[in-house]
């Protein structure tokens, strides 16, 4: 695996300025041409890991023994060099789509411009390409939606715009932060199928940050579990139900089920020693 791995992270720690505690502490993992899920508590550092990989943390101290992406040592790259990596070779679908779009520009135009940033072509070609992408992510009536402003599109449309922009750039590594949480199940499956195609056919590496346990269990190959800045468990996705860490066990128990009892849901009784990882399973 390590010979072909796309990403190799050793002991990554992140501390935001003005705080007294690491938001991410000694996190290590590798990523091959696979779908890696990251699950964890709200505030446990999942998005921070993604931003650290893209070096998008100007107000934090980031340290690591190693942060390698393909042939690049990310730790030593300058901001100038990162400009050639970000978006083009490594792309992050941000958790707050509407916040990542320019509020005063039509959404379709922003997709077309994203394409023109990476490939030489005329404005008309970029528009065609953008419209085709919106269609690919199942936006109804792309011609109408193309001309809307960010506040005029729905939550799920915003998520699909982020995915369309990522697809246009054709990256080798995609970090998707809650990419499908605002999509109805039918459209969600179609979008997951597109991401799946990128892994299977183009051999990209995909990191899927998600709270959706059904998605992670069935769509990902491996899962990392984060709790309070620490990576506490790592297991094959199909083994999720056999997780051993008390946080992961608690998560599984807290999930509402169709046809469930409707009694109050199980909640966690968090313990200080939960930051300790369980031994990896063979």
């Amino acid at each position, binding site marked *: 695996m390590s010979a072909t791995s796309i990403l190799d992270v050793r002991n990554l720690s992140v501390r935001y300025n003005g705080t007294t505690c690491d938001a991410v502490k000694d996190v290590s993992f590798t990523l091959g041409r696979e779908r890696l899920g990251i699950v964890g*508590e709200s505030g446990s550092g999942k998005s921070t890991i993604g931003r650290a990989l893209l070096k998008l943390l100007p107000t934090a101290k980031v340290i690591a023994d190693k942060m390698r992406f393909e042939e690049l040592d990310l730790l030593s790259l300058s901001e100038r060099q990162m400009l050639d990596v970000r978006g083009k070779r490594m792309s992050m679908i941000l958790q707050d789509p509407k916040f990542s779009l320019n509020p005063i520009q039509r959404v379709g135009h922003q997709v077309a411009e994203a394409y023109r940033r990476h490939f030489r072509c005329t404005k008309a070609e970029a528009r065609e390409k953008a419209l085709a992408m919106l269609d690919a992510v199942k936006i109804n009536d792309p011609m109408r939606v193309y001309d809307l402003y960010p506040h005029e599109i729905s*939550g799920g449309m915003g998520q699909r715009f982020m995915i369309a922009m990522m697809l246009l750039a054709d990256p080798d590594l995609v970090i998707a932060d809650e990419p499908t949480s*605002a999509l*109805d199940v039918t459209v969600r499956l179609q979008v997951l199928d597109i991401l799946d195609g990128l892994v299977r056919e183009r051999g990209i590496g995909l990191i899927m940050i998600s*709270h959706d346990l059904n998605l992670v269990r069935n769509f990902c190959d491996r899962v990392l579990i984060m709790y309070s800045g620490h990576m506490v468990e790592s297991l094959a996705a199909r083994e999720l139900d056999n997780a051993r860490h008390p946080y992961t066990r608690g998560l599984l128990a807290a999930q509402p089920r169709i046809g469930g009892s409707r009694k*109050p849901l199980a909640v966690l009784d968090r313990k200080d020693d939960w930051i300790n990882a369980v031994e990896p399973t063979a």
Partner: protein
Amino acid sequence: MKRVDIRNLSITFGTGPAAARVLPDVSFSVEAGECFGLVGESGSGKSTVLRCISMLTDIWSGKVTIGGTNVRDLAPLARSREIQMVFQDPYGSLHPRQSVRTVLSEPLKIHKLGDREARMSKAITDVGLPLSFLDRFPHQLSGGQRQRVAIARALILEPTVLLLDEPTSALDVSVQAEILNLLQKLREDRGFTYVMVSHDLAVVDHMCARFAVMQHGEVTEILPREAISGNGATHPYARELIAASLAYERAL
């Protein structure tokens, strides 16, 4: 406890050839003290329905009443005591330069409510955040922490009707469980009425007695929660959506 009644709600955005009739004619009623679910296709108009009820947009036609009072007859101040909304996208709904303390204390000041510190502490701990977060700004919070601040802000005025747009989709299921339990308890103790948008039919089944399925701006069918586990829908889209959700829960 107040009932919410929506009659012939219709809205068109834009004019001329670009005009889009997003909601042609939506009607449904929510019983006093009920948690009513709104599910359906992405882009079908769920958030727009909530925005109309709360008068965030007023270019709609039709009639919306809360406890028999037309929402158009409520002055803004009275309306905000009656209805609060938790937005789908918490980043957009929190002012970037307002600390959490300001977000929570502003409504208390406007409504001249006393015990501000105590109310703020209760609101922030109810959503599972430490008191030290009162001094943070939105960009210093994680996605789910922002969402919880938005929920705290909506609850702090103790409105009779809460419009919840995907309130827990940004939360891990353990925090989701805490928030859903809190919402249930408030409904039982105080008789709050909820309209809740969700893509997760397991959450709808857990929380709602009834729910509407939307597609292309229309309510295709209103169903009792029992219709989920056995797929008791008759409209083709509603059937498809429930079938997909059942399959999704089992395997992708």
